[in-house]
Protein backbone atom coordinates (compact mmCIF):
# COMPACT_ATOMS: atom_id res chain seq x y z
CA UNK A 1 0.00 0.00 0.00
CA UNK A 2 2.82 2.40 0.93
CA UNK A 3 4.67 1.74 -2.32
CA UNK A 4 1.47 2.13 -4.29
CA UNK A 5 0.72 5.56 -2.82
CA UNK A 6 4.36 6.57 -3.27
CA UNK A 7 4.06 5.62 -6.92
CA UNK A 8 0.71 7.44 -7.21
CA UNK A 9 2.29 10.72 -6.06
CA UNK A 10 5.68 10.42 -7.78
CA UNK A 11 4.52 9.20 -11.18
CA UNK A 12 3.42 12.76 -12.09
CA UNK A 13 6.80 14.48 -11.67
CA UNK A 14 8.36 11.49 -13.45
CA UNK A 15 5.96 11.94 -16.37
CA UNK A 16 6.69 15.66 -16.36
CA UNK A 17 10.40 14.89 -16.61
CA UNK A 18 9.74 12.61 -19.60
CA UNK A 19 7.70 15.25 -21.41
CA UNK A 20 10.30 17.92 -20.62
CA UNK A 21 13.06 15.78 -22.13
CA UNK A 22 10.92 15.10 -25.20
CA UNK A 23 10.14 18.79 -25.73
CA UNK A 24 13.73 19.97 -25.28
CA UNK A 25 14.98 17.33 -27.73
CA UNK A 26 12.33 18.32 -30.26
CA UNK A 27 13.12 22.02 -29.94
CA UNK A 28 16.84 21.41 -30.45
CA UNK A 29 16.00 19.36 -33.56
CA UNK A 30 13.64 22.10 -34.81
CA UNK A 31 16.35 24.70 -34.27
CA UNK A 32 18.92 22.69 -36.17
CA UNK A 33 16.48 22.14 -39.04
CA UNK A 34 15.54 25.82 -39.13
CA UNK A 35 19.23 26.76 -39.32
CA UNK A 36 19.80 24.31 -42.16
CA UNK A 37 16.86 25.75 -44.06
CA UNK A 38 17.98 29.30 -43.17
CA UNK A 39 14.65 30.27 -41.66
CA UNK A 40 13.58 31.37 -38.22
CA UNK A 41 12.44 29.00 -35.49
CA UNK A 42 9.21 30.95 -34.98
Amino acid at each position, binding site marked *: MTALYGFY*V*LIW*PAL*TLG*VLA*LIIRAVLRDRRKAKEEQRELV
Partner: protein
Amino acid sequence: MNSELYQFSTLTVILLLLAFYGGTYLLTLGIRKKNEDADAFMVSNHRVGFGIGAASMTATWIWAASFYAAATSGYTYGVSGPIHYGLWGALMILFIYPFGRRFRKLAPNAHTLGELIHARHGSSSQLILALSNVLGSVISLMVNFTAAGALVSVLSPLSFQAGVIIAGVGVLLYTLWSGFRASVLTDFAQLVALMAIAIVIIPAVFFSMGGPTELVAGLDNLTPEQASLFSMDAILNQGAPFFVAVLAYAIGNQTISQRLFAVNEDHIKPTFLTATVGYGAIVIGLGMIGLMALTTGVQPLDGDMNNLIPQMVSGYLPPLFIALFFILVIGSLSSTADSDLSALSAIMMADVYGKNIARGKADPKRMLLVGRLTMIIATMVGVVFASFALDILVMLVFVGALWGAIVFPVIASCFWSRVTNQAFTTSVLVAMVLFCVARFELVSLDGGSGLFFELLASVGGGVIIGLMVFGFLGRTAGFIAGLLALVAMLIFATGFLHDYTVLLASLTAYGASTVVCVVMSLLSRQPDFDFDTIRERVGDYDSHDKAPGAEEDDALPAATRLAGQR
Protein backbone atom coordinates in the same frame (compact mmCIF):
# COMPACT_ATOMS: atom_id res chain seq x y z
CA MET B 1 5.63 22.28 10.18
CA ASN B 2 5.70 26.09 10.11
CA SER B 3 2.08 27.23 9.70
CA GLU B 4 2.94 30.80 8.68
CA LEU B 5 3.65 31.82 5.09
CA TYR B 6 7.26 32.78 4.38
CA GLN B 7 7.71 36.48 3.65
CA PHE B 8 10.18 37.83 1.09
CA SER B 9 11.51 41.34 1.45
CA THR B 10 10.27 43.92 -1.06
CA LEU B 11 13.71 44.01 -2.67
CA THR B 12 13.83 40.23 -3.13
CA VAL B 13 10.41 40.10 -4.80
CA ILE B 14 11.24 43.00 -7.07
CA LEU B 15 14.52 41.32 -8.04
CA LEU B 16 12.71 38.02 -8.73
CA LEU B 17 10.13 39.77 -10.92
CA LEU B 18 12.81 41.81 -12.65
CA ALA B 19 14.84 38.67 -13.35
CA PHE B 20 11.79 36.87 -14.74
CA TYR B 21 10.30 39.63 -16.90
CA GLY B 22 13.71 41.08 -17.81
CA GLY B 23 14.98 37.66 -18.89
CA THR B 24 11.83 37.00 -20.90
CA TYR B 25 12.06 40.39 -22.58
CA LEU B 26 15.72 39.81 -23.50
CA LEU B 27 14.74 36.47 -25.02
CA THR B 28 12.30 38.17 -27.38
CA LEU B 29 14.98 40.57 -28.63
CA GLY B 30 16.52 37.60 -30.44
CA ILE B 31 13.52 37.23 -32.75
CA ARG B 32 12.49 40.88 -32.99
CA LYS B 33 12.27 42.44 -36.47
CA LYS B 34 12.05 46.13 -37.24
CA ASN B 35 9.14 45.52 -39.57
CA GLU B 36 7.07 42.66 -38.24
CA ASP B 37 4.80 40.71 -40.56
CA ALA B 38 1.04 40.86 -39.81
CA ASP B 39 0.55 37.12 -40.39
CA ALA B 40 3.57 36.16 -38.30
CA PHE B 41 2.31 38.49 -35.56
CA MET B 42 -0.85 36.32 -35.43
CA VAL B 43 0.29 32.76 -36.19
CA SER B 44 4.05 32.81 -36.85
CA ASN B 45 4.79 31.08 -40.17
CA HIS B 46 2.14 28.29 -39.97
CA ARG B 47 5.13 25.96 -39.55
CA VAL B 48 5.92 26.08 -35.85
CA GLY B 49 7.71 22.85 -34.98
CA PHE B 50 6.53 20.05 -32.71
CA GLY B 51 8.72 21.01 -29.73
CA ILE B 52 7.88 24.72 -29.59
CA GLY B 53 4.23 23.97 -30.44
CA ALA B 54 3.82 21.38 -27.67
CA ALA B 55 5.61 23.62 -25.17
CA SER B 56 3.48 26.60 -26.11
CA MET B 57 0.21 24.68 -25.94
CA THR B 58 1.11 23.23 -22.54
CA ALA B 59 2.31 26.53 -21.08
CA THR B 60 -0.73 28.38 -22.38
CA TRP B 61 -3.21 25.89 -20.95
CA ILE B 62 -1.55 25.94 -17.53
CA TRP B 63 -2.57 29.09 -15.73
CA ALA B 64 -2.10 30.05 -12.12
CA ALA B 65 -5.56 28.77 -11.21
CA SER B 66 -4.57 25.29 -12.45
CA PHE B 67 -2.28 24.74 -9.45
CA TYR B 68 -4.54 26.29 -6.87
CA ALA B 69 -7.68 24.55 -8.14
CA ALA B 70 -5.94 21.16 -8.47
CA ALA B 71 -4.62 21.42 -4.90
CA THR B 72 -8.05 22.52 -3.70
CA SER B 73 -9.56 19.52 -5.46
CA GLY B 74 -7.02 17.21 -3.79
CA TYR B 75 -7.71 18.77 -0.41
CA THR B 76 -11.50 18.62 -0.84
CA TYR B 77 -12.04 15.31 -2.60
CA GLY B 78 -8.96 13.41 -1.43
CA VAL B 79 -7.15 10.74 -3.41
CA SER B 80 -9.07 11.15 -6.69
CA GLY B 81 -9.40 14.95 -6.46
CA PRO B 82 -6.29 15.98 -8.43
CA ILE B 83 -7.19 13.54 -11.22
CA HIS B 84 -10.70 14.96 -11.52
CA TYR B 85 -9.21 18.40 -12.03
CA GLY B 86 -6.15 17.68 -14.17
CA LEU B 87 -7.44 14.85 -16.33
CA TRP B 88 -10.44 16.70 -17.74
CA GLY B 89 -8.40 19.83 -18.27
CA ALA B 90 -5.90 17.73 -20.22
CA LEU B 91 -8.65 16.11 -22.27
CA MET B 92 -9.75 19.56 -23.42
CA ILE B 93 -6.48 19.69 -25.38
CA LEU B 94 -6.77 16.10 -26.58
CA PHE B 95 -10.34 16.25 -27.86
CA ILE B 96 -9.84 19.38 -29.94
CA TYR B 97 -7.07 18.08 -32.18
CA PRO B 98 -9.18 15.86 -34.50
CA PHE B 99 -11.41 18.87 -35.13
CA GLY B 100 -8.35 21.08 -35.36
CA ARG B 101 -7.01 19.00 -38.22
CA ARG B 102 -10.29 19.54 -40.06
CA PHE B 103 -10.17 23.30 -39.40
CA ARG B 104 -6.64 23.38 -40.75
CA LYS B 105 -7.54 21.34 -43.81
CA LEU B 106 -10.40 23.69 -44.63
CA ALA B 107 -8.43 26.88 -44.02
CA PRO B 108 -4.66 26.23 -43.98
CA ASN B 109 -3.83 29.94 -43.86
CA ALA B 110 -6.39 31.06 -41.28
CA HIS B 111 -5.37 32.99 -38.19
CA THR B 112 -8.56 32.57 -36.16
CA LEU B 113 -11.44 30.11 -36.12
CA GLY B 114 -13.66 33.13 -36.70
CA GLU B 115 -12.12 33.65 -40.15
CA LEU B 116 -13.11 30.11 -41.09
CA ILE B 117 -16.65 30.65 -39.82
CA HIS B 118 -16.79 33.97 -41.67
CA ALA B 119 -15.87 32.23 -44.91
CA ARG B 120 -18.43 29.52 -44.18
CA HIS B 121 -21.35 31.68 -43.01
CA GLY B 122 -20.63 35.41 -42.91
CA SER B 123 -20.35 38.09 -40.27
CA SER B 124 -23.08 37.29 -37.74
CA SER B 125 -21.87 33.76 -36.96
CA GLN B 126 -18.25 34.90 -37.02
CA LEU B 127 -18.88 37.76 -34.62
CA ILE B 128 -20.72 35.48 -32.17
CA LEU B 129 -17.63 33.27 -32.09
CA ALA B 130 -15.29 36.28 -31.86
CA LEU B 131 -17.32 37.74 -28.98
CA SER B 132 -17.13 34.48 -27.04
CA ASN B 133 -13.35 34.36 -27.64
CA VAL B 134 -12.85 37.98 -26.56
CA LEU B 135 -14.85 37.55 -23.35
CA GLY B 136 -12.96 34.36 -22.53
CA SER B 137 -9.55 35.93 -23.04
CA VAL B 138 -10.40 39.09 -21.08
CA ILE B 139 -11.60 36.97 -18.15
CA SER B 140 -8.47 34.84 -18.38
CA LEU B 141 -6.25 37.95 -18.40
CA MET B 142 -8.02 39.33 -15.37
CA VAL B 143 -7.79 36.05 -13.45
CA ASN B 144 -4.06 35.76 -14.18
CA PHE B 145 -3.29 39.32 -13.15
CA THR B 146 -5.38 38.77 -10.01
CA ALA B 147 -3.30 35.68 -9.23
CA ALA B 148 -0.11 37.73 -9.60
CA GLY B 149 -1.45 40.37 -7.20
CA ALA B 150 -2.52 37.74 -4.69
CA LEU B 151 0.83 35.92 -4.84
CA VAL B 152 2.90 39.08 -4.42
CA SER B 153 0.73 40.32 -1.54
CA VAL B 154 0.83 37.05 0.45
CA LEU B 155 4.57 36.43 0.03
CA SER B 156 5.88 40.00 0.38
CA PRO B 157 5.06 43.43 1.84
CA LEU B 158 4.14 44.67 -1.66
CA SER B 159 0.46 45.42 -2.26
CA PHE B 160 -1.98 43.41 -4.36
CA GLN B 161 -2.25 46.27 -6.86
CA ALA B 162 1.53 46.44 -7.23
CA GLY B 163 1.62 42.74 -8.15
CA VAL B 164 -1.19 43.20 -10.69
CA ILE B 165 0.49 46.17 -12.36
CA ILE B 166 3.96 44.56 -12.49
CA ALA B 167 2.53 41.42 -14.10
CA GLY B 168 0.47 43.45 -16.60
CA VAL B 169 3.35 45.67 -17.66
CA GLY B 170 5.83 42.78 -17.69
CA VAL B 171 3.72 40.61 -19.98
CA LEU B 172 2.81 43.50 -22.29
CA LEU B 173 6.45 44.54 -22.58
CA TYR B 174 7.68 41.29 -24.09
CA THR B 175 4.58 40.52 -26.20
CA LEU B 176 3.81 43.92 -27.71
CA TRP B 177 6.28 44.03 -30.58
CA SER B 178 6.39 40.48 -31.97
CA GLY B 179 2.97 39.23 -30.80
CA PHE B 180 2.39 35.49 -31.22
CA ARG B 181 6.03 34.85 -32.15
CA ALA B 182 7.16 36.28 -28.84
CA SER B 183 4.41 34.37 -27.06
CA VAL B 184 5.39 30.92 -28.39
CA LEU B 185 9.12 31.46 -27.93
CA THR B 186 8.77 32.64 -24.34
CA ASP B 187 6.23 29.86 -23.67
CA PHE B 188 9.01 27.38 -24.32
CA ALA B 189 11.39 29.02 -21.86
CA GLN B 190 8.63 29.47 -19.29
CA LEU B 191 7.52 25.85 -19.64
CA VAL B 192 11.04 24.52 -19.18
CA ALA B 193 11.32 26.52 -15.93
CA LEU B 194 7.83 25.54 -14.87
CA MET B 195 8.38 21.82 -15.47
CA ALA B 196 11.83 21.79 -13.87
CA ILE B 197 10.44 23.46 -10.75
CA ALA B 198 7.43 21.11 -10.59
CA ILE B 199 9.74 18.09 -10.95
CA VAL B 200 11.74 19.28 -7.93
CA ILE B 201 9.01 20.73 -5.71
CA ILE B 202 6.54 17.82 -5.70
CA PRO B 203 8.96 15.14 -4.42
CA ALA B 204 10.65 17.71 -2.14
CA VAL B 205 7.41 18.49 -0.30
CA PHE B 206 6.40 14.81 -0.34
CA PHE B 207 9.59 13.53 1.30
CA SER B 208 9.88 16.50 3.67
CA MET B 209 6.44 15.71 5.09
CA GLY B 210 7.47 12.10 5.68
CA GLY B 211 7.01 10.39 2.30
CA PRO B 212 4.62 7.57 1.45
CA THR B 213 4.58 6.20 5.01
CA GLU B 214 3.26 9.46 6.40
CA LEU B 215 0.77 9.79 3.53
CA VAL B 216 -0.66 6.31 4.14
CA ALA B 217 -0.80 6.95 7.90
CA GLY B 218 -2.71 10.15 7.21
CA LEU B 219 -5.33 8.35 5.13
CA ASP B 220 -7.06 7.49 8.43
CA ASN B 221 -8.00 11.18 8.69
CA LEU B 222 -9.95 10.97 5.43
CA THR B 223 -13.63 10.19 4.94
CA PRO B 224 -14.40 6.98 2.98
CA GLU B 225 -15.26 9.13 -0.05
CA GLN B 226 -11.96 11.03 0.19
CA ALA B 227 -9.99 7.81 0.55
CA SER B 228 -11.57 6.24 -2.53
CA LEU B 229 -10.03 6.53 -5.98
CA PHE B 230 -13.54 6.14 -7.41
CA SER B 231 -15.29 8.71 -5.24
CA MET B 232 -18.76 9.51 -6.59
CA ASP B 233 -18.61 12.78 -4.71
CA ALA B 234 -15.52 13.79 -6.70
CA ILE B 235 -16.97 12.54 -9.99
CA LEU B 236 -20.30 14.36 -9.63
CA ASN B 237 -19.03 17.61 -8.15
CA GLN B 238 -15.64 17.98 -9.82
CA GLY B 239 -15.35 15.58 -12.76
CA ALA B 240 -18.80 15.80 -14.40
CA PRO B 241 -19.03 19.61 -14.73
CA PHE B 242 -15.50 19.59 -16.20
CA PHE B 243 -16.37 16.77 -18.56
CA VAL B 244 -19.32 18.78 -19.90
CA ALA B 245 -16.97 21.70 -20.53
CA VAL B 246 -14.28 19.69 -22.37
CA LEU B 247 -15.31 20.60 -25.93
CA ALA B 248 -16.73 24.01 -25.04
CA TYR B 249 -13.46 25.28 -23.56
CA ALA B 250 -11.49 24.03 -26.53
CA ILE B 251 -13.80 25.47 -29.20
CA GLY B 252 -14.36 28.74 -27.39
CA ASN B 253 -10.71 29.51 -26.82
CA GLN B 254 -8.77 31.40 -29.48
CA THR B 255 -5.47 30.57 -27.76
CA ILE B 256 -6.02 26.95 -28.84
CA SER B 257 -7.19 27.68 -32.39
CA GLN B 258 -4.29 30.08 -32.85
CA ARG B 259 -1.88 27.22 -32.13
CA LEU B 260 -3.86 24.86 -34.35
CA PHE B 261 -3.29 27.28 -37.23
CA ALA B 262 0.33 27.97 -36.28
CA VAL B 263 1.92 24.54 -35.87
CA ASN B 264 3.16 22.55 -38.82
CA GLU B 265 0.05 20.77 -40.16
CA ASP B 266 1.77 17.36 -39.98
CA HIS B 267 2.60 17.90 -36.31
CA ILE B 268 -0.85 18.80 -34.97
CA LYS B 269 -1.45 15.32 -33.52
CA PRO B 270 1.89 14.81 -31.68
CA THR B 271 1.86 18.43 -30.53
CA PHE B 272 -1.55 18.16 -28.90
CA LEU B 273 -0.93 14.65 -27.54
CA THR B 274 2.29 15.80 -25.87
CA ALA B 275 0.58 18.88 -24.47
CA THR B 276 -2.18 16.66 -23.07
CA VAL B 277 0.32 14.49 -21.17
CA GLY B 278 2.42 17.49 -20.11
CA TYR B 279 -0.52 19.46 -18.77
CA GLY B 280 -1.99 16.44 -16.98
CA ALA B 281 1.30 15.47 -15.35
CA ILE B 282 2.15 18.95 -14.02
CA VAL B 283 -1.33 19.87 -12.82
CA ILE B 284 -2.20 16.50 -11.25
CA GLY B 285 1.27 16.39 -9.67
CA LEU B 286 0.86 19.81 -8.04
CA GLY B 287 -2.69 18.82 -7.05
CA MET B 288 -1.08 16.03 -5.01
CA ILE B 289 0.23 18.74 -2.66
CA GLY B 290 -3.42 19.38 -1.74
CA LEU B 291 -3.81 15.68 -0.93
CA MET B 292 -0.63 15.81 1.18
CA ALA B 293 -2.05 18.81 3.06
CA LEU B 294 -5.26 16.89 3.71
CA THR B 295 -3.51 13.79 5.04
CA THR B 296 -1.24 15.81 7.33
CA GLY B 297 -4.20 17.78 8.71
CA VAL B 298 -3.06 21.19 7.45
CA GLN B 299 -5.76 23.88 7.68
CA PRO B 300 -5.72 26.51 4.89
CA LEU B 301 -4.55 29.86 6.24
CA ASP B 302 -7.47 32.28 6.74
CA GLY B 303 -9.70 29.55 5.27
CA ASP B 304 -8.38 30.41 1.81
CA MET B 305 -7.70 27.28 -0.25
CA ASN B 306 -5.35 29.27 -2.51
CA ASN B 307 -2.92 29.37 0.43
CA LEU B 308 -2.55 25.57 0.50
CA ILE B 309 0.43 25.17 -1.86
CA PRO B 310 2.32 28.26 -0.56
CA GLN B 311 1.67 27.00 2.98
CA MET B 312 3.00 23.51 2.26
CA VAL B 313 6.06 24.89 0.46
CA SER B 314 6.67 27.45 3.23
CA GLY B 315 6.13 24.83 5.92
CA TYR B 316 8.34 22.05 4.64
CA LEU B 317 10.96 23.62 2.37
CA PRO B 318 13.72 26.26 2.65
CA PRO B 319 13.27 29.78 1.17
CA LEU B 320 15.00 28.82 -2.11
CA PHE B 321 12.06 26.52 -2.93
CA ILE B 322 9.59 29.28 -2.08
CA ALA B 323 11.39 31.49 -4.60
CA LEU B 324 11.13 28.65 -7.14
CA PHE B 325 7.42 28.30 -6.38
CA PHE B 326 7.05 32.05 -6.87
CA ILE B 327 8.66 31.78 -10.32
CA LEU B 328 6.48 28.72 -11.09
CA VAL B 329 3.27 30.69 -10.53
CA ILE B 330 4.53 33.87 -12.24
CA GLY B 331 5.67 31.76 -15.22
CA SER B 332 2.37 29.94 -15.55
CA LEU B 333 0.22 33.06 -15.33
CA SER B 334 2.49 35.04 -17.67
CA SER B 335 2.53 32.35 -20.36
CA THR B 336 -1.27 32.28 -20.35
CA ALA B 337 -1.59 36.06 -20.22
CA ASP B 338 0.75 36.59 -23.20
CA SER B 339 -1.25 34.01 -25.15
CA ASP B 340 -4.47 35.83 -24.28
CA LEU B 341 -2.98 39.10 -25.49
CA SER B 342 -1.92 37.42 -28.74
CA ALA B 343 -5.36 35.82 -29.11
CA LEU B 344 -7.18 39.10 -28.53
CA SER B 345 -4.95 40.95 -30.97
CA ALA B 346 -5.50 38.28 -33.66
CA ILE B 347 -9.29 38.49 -33.21
CA MET B 348 -9.27 42.27 -33.51
CA MET B 349 -6.83 42.18 -36.44
CA ALA B 350 -8.44 39.42 -38.49
CA ASP B 351 -12.04 39.05 -37.33
CA VAL B 352 -12.90 42.66 -36.65
CA TYR B 353 -10.57 44.78 -38.79
CA GLY B 354 -9.70 42.34 -41.59
CA LYS B 355 -13.14 40.86 -42.19
CA ASN B 356 -15.59 43.50 -41.03
CA ILE B 357 -13.91 46.90 -41.37
CA ALA B 358 -11.37 46.61 -44.19
CA ARG B 359 -13.50 43.95 -45.96
CA GLY B 360 -10.83 42.42 -48.13
CA LYS B 361 -8.64 45.52 -48.39
CA ALA B 362 -6.74 45.07 -45.17
CA ASP B 363 -3.50 47.01 -44.84
CA PRO B 364 -0.95 44.78 -43.02
CA LYS B 365 0.69 47.79 -41.34
CA ARG B 366 -2.64 49.02 -40.03
CA MET B 367 -3.42 45.48 -38.89
CA LEU B 368 -0.27 45.46 -36.79
CA LEU B 369 -1.26 48.78 -35.27
CA VAL B 370 -4.71 47.36 -34.45
CA GLY B 371 -3.07 44.31 -32.87
CA ARG B 372 -0.70 46.30 -30.69
CA LEU B 373 -3.35 48.79 -29.62
CA THR B 374 -5.57 45.83 -28.70
CA MET B 375 -2.80 44.44 -26.50
CA ILE B 376 -2.37 47.76 -24.71
CA ILE B 377 -6.10 48.24 -24.16
CA ALA B 378 -6.64 44.61 -23.11
CA THR B 379 -3.79 44.87 -20.57
CA MET B 380 -5.29 48.06 -19.16
CA VAL B 381 -8.73 46.45 -18.92
CA GLY B 382 -7.27 43.32 -17.30
CA VAL B 383 -5.24 45.34 -14.80
CA VAL B 384 -8.16 47.63 -13.89
CA PHE B 385 -10.65 44.75 -13.50
CA ALA B 386 -8.12 42.74 -11.48
CA SER B 387 -7.20 45.73 -9.27
CA PHE B 388 -10.82 46.32 -8.34
CA ALA B 389 -11.26 42.58 -7.64
CA LEU B 390 -14.59 42.65 -9.52
CA ASP B 391 -16.98 39.75 -9.15
CA ILE B 392 -16.87 38.01 -12.49
CA LEU B 393 -19.10 35.07 -11.62
CA VAL B 394 -22.04 36.22 -13.77
CA MET B 395 -19.71 36.95 -16.68
CA LEU B 396 -18.16 33.51 -16.30
CA VAL B 397 -21.59 31.89 -16.31
CA PHE B 398 -22.56 33.60 -19.57
CA VAL B 399 -19.26 32.87 -21.29
CA GLY B 400 -19.50 29.21 -20.30
CA ALA B 401 -23.02 29.07 -21.71
CA LEU B 402 -21.97 30.80 -24.92
CA TRP B 403 -19.10 28.37 -25.38
CA GLY B 404 -21.46 25.42 -24.82
CA ALA B 405 -24.00 26.86 -27.25
CA ILE B 406 -21.52 27.30 -30.10
CA VAL B 407 -19.90 23.85 -29.92
CA PHE B 408 -22.34 21.98 -32.17
CA PRO B 409 -22.94 24.81 -34.68
CA VAL B 410 -19.19 25.38 -35.13
CA ILE B 411 -18.31 21.70 -35.54
CA ALA B 412 -21.34 20.94 -37.72
CA SER B 413 -20.51 23.93 -39.93
CA CYS B 414 -17.13 22.39 -40.70
CA PHE B 415 -18.42 18.94 -41.59
CA TRP B 416 -22.04 19.29 -42.78
CA SER B 417 -22.65 21.27 -45.94
CA ARG B 418 -26.31 22.02 -45.16
CA VAL B 419 -25.76 24.17 -42.03
CA THR B 420 -26.75 27.77 -42.78
CA ASN B 421 -25.77 31.11 -41.28
CA GLN B 422 -29.34 31.56 -40.04
CA ALA B 423 -29.30 28.12 -38.41
CA PHE B 424 -25.96 28.91 -36.71
CA THR B 425 -27.00 32.31 -35.37
CA THR B 426 -30.53 31.36 -34.34
CA SER B 427 -29.46 28.17 -32.63
CA VAL B 428 -26.88 29.99 -30.49
CA LEU B 429 -29.34 32.74 -29.52
CA VAL B 430 -32.13 30.26 -28.65
CA ALA B 431 -29.67 28.16 -26.65
CA MET B 432 -28.53 31.22 -24.68
CA VAL B 433 -32.13 32.18 -23.85
CA LEU B 434 -33.03 28.65 -22.74
CA PHE B 435 -29.79 28.43 -20.76
CA CYS B 436 -30.73 31.59 -18.84
CA VAL B 437 -34.25 30.30 -18.19
CA ALA B 438 -32.86 27.07 -16.71
CA ARG B 439 -29.81 28.55 -14.95
CA PHE B 440 -31.71 31.31 -13.18
CA GLU B 441 -34.90 29.21 -12.81
CA LEU B 442 -37.01 31.84 -14.56
CA VAL B 443 -39.74 29.17 -14.83
CA SER B 444 -40.47 26.39 -12.38
CA LEU B 445 -38.26 23.40 -13.07
CA ASP B 446 -40.84 20.99 -11.66
CA GLY B 447 -43.41 19.17 -13.73
CA GLY B 448 -43.74 19.67 -17.49
CA SER B 449 -41.27 22.53 -17.85
CA GLY B 450 -38.65 20.65 -15.83
CA LEU B 451 -39.14 17.61 -18.04
CA PHE B 452 -38.76 19.81 -21.15
CA PHE B 453 -35.37 21.03 -19.96
CA GLU B 454 -34.32 17.54 -18.92
CA LEU B 455 -35.12 16.29 -22.42
CA LEU B 456 -33.04 19.08 -23.96
CA ALA B 457 -30.25 18.37 -21.48
CA SER B 458 -30.37 14.69 -22.42
CA VAL B 459 -29.92 15.66 -26.06
CA GLY B 460 -27.00 17.84 -24.88
CA GLY B 461 -25.42 14.85 -23.13
CA GLY B 462 -25.81 12.77 -26.28
CA VAL B 463 -24.25 15.54 -28.37
CA ILE B 464 -21.18 15.81 -26.13
CA ILE B 465 -20.48 12.07 -26.18
CA GLY B 466 -21.37 11.82 -29.86
CA LEU B 467 -19.01 14.63 -30.88
CA MET B 468 -16.15 13.27 -28.79
CA VAL B 469 -16.45 9.83 -30.37
CA PHE B 470 -17.03 11.34 -33.82
CA GLY B 471 -13.75 13.26 -33.55
CA PHE B 472 -11.72 10.07 -33.14
CA LEU B 473 -13.78 7.29 -34.69
CA GLY B 474 -15.90 8.91 -37.36
CA ARG B 475 -19.52 9.59 -38.16
CA THR B 476 -21.13 6.18 -37.59
CA ALA B 477 -19.43 5.52 -34.26
CA GLY B 478 -20.18 9.07 -33.15
CA PHE B 479 -23.82 8.76 -34.07
CA ILE B 480 -24.20 5.42 -32.26
CA ALA B 481 -22.36 6.69 -29.14
CA GLY B 482 -24.47 9.85 -29.10
CA LEU B 483 -27.67 7.85 -29.44
CA LEU B 484 -26.66 5.48 -26.64
CA ALA B 485 -25.76 8.42 -24.40
CA LEU B 486 -29.10 10.07 -25.19
CA VAL B 487 -31.02 6.91 -24.27
CA ALA B 488 -28.99 6.51 -21.06
CA MET B 489 -29.65 10.16 -20.17
CA LEU B 490 -33.37 9.78 -20.87
CA ILE B 491 -33.54 6.75 -18.59
CA PHE B 492 -31.28 7.90 -15.75
CA ALA B 493 -31.29 11.71 -15.84
CA THR B 494 -34.94 12.59 -16.31
CA GLY B 495 -36.67 13.12 -13.00
CA PHE B 496 -33.64 14.28 -11.03
CA LEU B 497 -31.44 16.45 -13.26
CA HIS B 498 -33.65 19.50 -12.58
CA ASP B 499 -32.22 19.50 -9.05
CA TYR B 500 -28.75 20.24 -10.48
CA THR B 501 -29.46 23.53 -12.25
CA VAL B 502 -25.85 24.31 -13.25
CA LEU B 503 -25.42 20.98 -15.00
CA LEU B 504 -28.98 21.09 -16.41
CA ALA B 505 -28.47 24.58 -17.86
CA SER B 506 -25.08 23.73 -19.39
CA LEU B 507 -26.40 20.61 -21.05
CA THR B 508 -29.49 22.54 -22.20
CA ALA B 509 -27.23 24.98 -24.07
CA TYR B 510 -25.65 22.09 -26.00
CA GLY B 511 -28.99 20.34 -26.62
CA ALA B 512 -30.99 23.41 -27.65
CA SER B 513 -28.38 24.71 -30.09
CA THR B 514 -28.10 21.25 -31.66
CA VAL B 515 -31.84 20.74 -32.08
CA VAL B 516 -32.42 24.22 -33.55
CA CYS B 517 -29.36 24.05 -35.80
CA VAL B 518 -30.27 20.60 -37.17
CA VAL B 519 -33.97 21.38 -37.72
CA MET B 520 -33.30 24.74 -39.40
CA SER B 521 -30.56 23.27 -41.59
CA LEU B 522 -32.77 20.41 -42.70
CA LEU B 523 -35.64 22.80 -43.50
CA SER B 524 -33.37 25.18 -45.42
CA ARG B 525 -33.66 25.31 -49.20
CA GLN B 526 -30.23 26.86 -49.68
CA PRO B 527 -27.84 24.91 -51.91
CA ASP B 528 -25.25 22.76 -50.14
CA PHE B 529 -22.06 24.63 -49.24
CA ASP B 530 -18.86 23.91 -51.15
CA PHE B 531 -16.13 23.55 -48.51
CA ASP B 532 -13.37 24.21 -51.06
CA THR B 533 -14.39 27.87 -51.17
CA ILE B 534 -13.19 28.38 -47.59
CA ARG B 535 -9.57 27.88 -48.63
CA GLU B 536 -10.04 30.49 -51.35
CA ARG B 537 -11.63 33.00 -48.99
CA VAL B 538 -9.17 32.73 -46.10
CA GLY B 539 -5.61 33.77 -46.87
CA ASP B 540 -2.59 35.60 -45.57
CA TYR B 541 -2.52 39.38 -45.35
CA ASP B 542 1.17 39.95 -46.01
CA SER B 543 3.04 38.77 -49.11
CA HIS B 544 5.61 36.16 -48.08
CA ASP B 545 6.50 32.49 -48.38
CA LYS B 546 3.44 30.31 -47.95
CA ALA B 547 2.89 27.31 -45.77
CA PRO B 548 2.79 23.87 -47.38
CA GLY B 549 -0.73 23.07 -48.49
CA ALA B 550 -1.40 26.52 -49.82
CA GLU B 551 0.41 26.08 -53.10
CA GLU B 552 -2.52 27.02 -55.28
CA ASP B 553 -2.62 30.45 -53.71
CA ASP B 554 1.02 31.10 -54.49
CA ALA B 555 0.29 32.05 -58.05
CA LEU B 556 -1.92 34.89 -56.91
CA PRO B 557 -0.65 38.22 -55.60
CA ALA B 558 -1.68 39.12 -52.06
CA ALA B 559 -4.20 41.70 -53.25
CA THR B 560 -6.00 39.18 -55.47
CA ARG B 561 -6.18 36.68 -52.63
CA LEU B 562 -7.54 39.34 -50.30
CA ALA B 563 -10.25 40.26 -52.78
CA GLY B 564 -11.67 36.77 -52.35
CA GLN B 565 -12.10 37.32 -48.63
CA ARG B 566 -15.46 39.10 -48.97
